[in-house]
């Protein structure tokens, strides 16, 4: 399914939400978790994922921890306090957008409809 443009705008929210549910995650783990949750329908491109993670880190929403795994290092990301606050606001922002989109796509839908 080619939905890269649709995912692009909500990538940060997806990352924040996943990290809210999991204490810490690394890049590969995030891509696999999204694939697993959407039965392979959504695939996050690594070229978009890593810059998004670095941006969230620079904004102070994520903190990082480096761990030695076998013969290499692995960078784990987790939510900061600011990040935890941001998840709620980003989630309601996205949910509001999806609801409005739904209204446009199906005008017959009742105004109080929730996804």
């Amino acid at each position: 399914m080619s939905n890269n443009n649709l995912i692009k705008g909500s990538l940060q929210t997806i990352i924040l939400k996943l990290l809210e549910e999991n204490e810490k995650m690394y890049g590969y783990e995030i891509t696999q978790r999204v694939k697993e949750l959407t039965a392979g329908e959504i695939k996050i491109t690594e070229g978009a994922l890593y810059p998004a993670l670095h941006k969230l880190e620079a904004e102070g929403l994520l903190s990082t921890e480096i761990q030695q795994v076998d013969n290499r290092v692995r960078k784990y990301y987790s939510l900061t306090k600011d990040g935890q606050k941001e998840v709620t606001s980003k989630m309601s922002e996205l949910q509001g957008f999806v609801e409005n989109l739904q209204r446009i796509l199906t005008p017959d839908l009742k105004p109080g409809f929730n996804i």
Partner: protein
Amino acid sequence: MRKLSAQEFDRIHTRLKSLYIRYTEVYEEIFDHYCTTLENVSEAESIIVLTQLNETFAWSVVKGMDQELEKNVSKQVWVAQLEFLKFWNHGLKGLLATIIGFALLEIAIFIIPVSELILVFLVIILITTAGVFFMKRDAISFRLSHKMVSISSATIIKRVGILNTIFMWIYAMPSVLTRGEIHSNTLFVWGMGIVTVFSTLYSISLLVIASNLTNYRTTR
């Protein structure tokens, strides 16, 4: 999950080296991604998956990652630097250090003849710069071949380099234009004194922040 063979590690390193990745942090993150992906597939599928990974981490993608990291770390360091320079946020210690700094500057201006003071300031700036460059020498390379560097070291060297180039112009231009006569001008010397304090504080703040950033990024 299986263990990768030495040959597979070699293939990954060869591929990543061919991409001329600028920052160690990007290299390590992509390397871990390659290894984890390959560990989760059978040896028979390894070559196909490796080819897919090479397409995923194409030249343009990796260059984009380098640039994005540079932009993000630069922003992060800048915000932290501004916070660091707010001496009133460091409590009594910060306040004392600032008072002592300015007191020393004022004493120097009264004790040392104005014309010689400029030299003192230049020496302070040069020592600070040399110290910063020595501590972050891993980001300096005189070789023509590619060298991967740490993002925090590269950020410091770049900023200290820019700062001192500006400083040298501030010092050199009036000196050349007045053939050195400006060195005995009290106002110019005061200005240079303030520039010196600012430049030293700026270099120290960069060192402290980037060292924290490095430690933070490499906590194992």
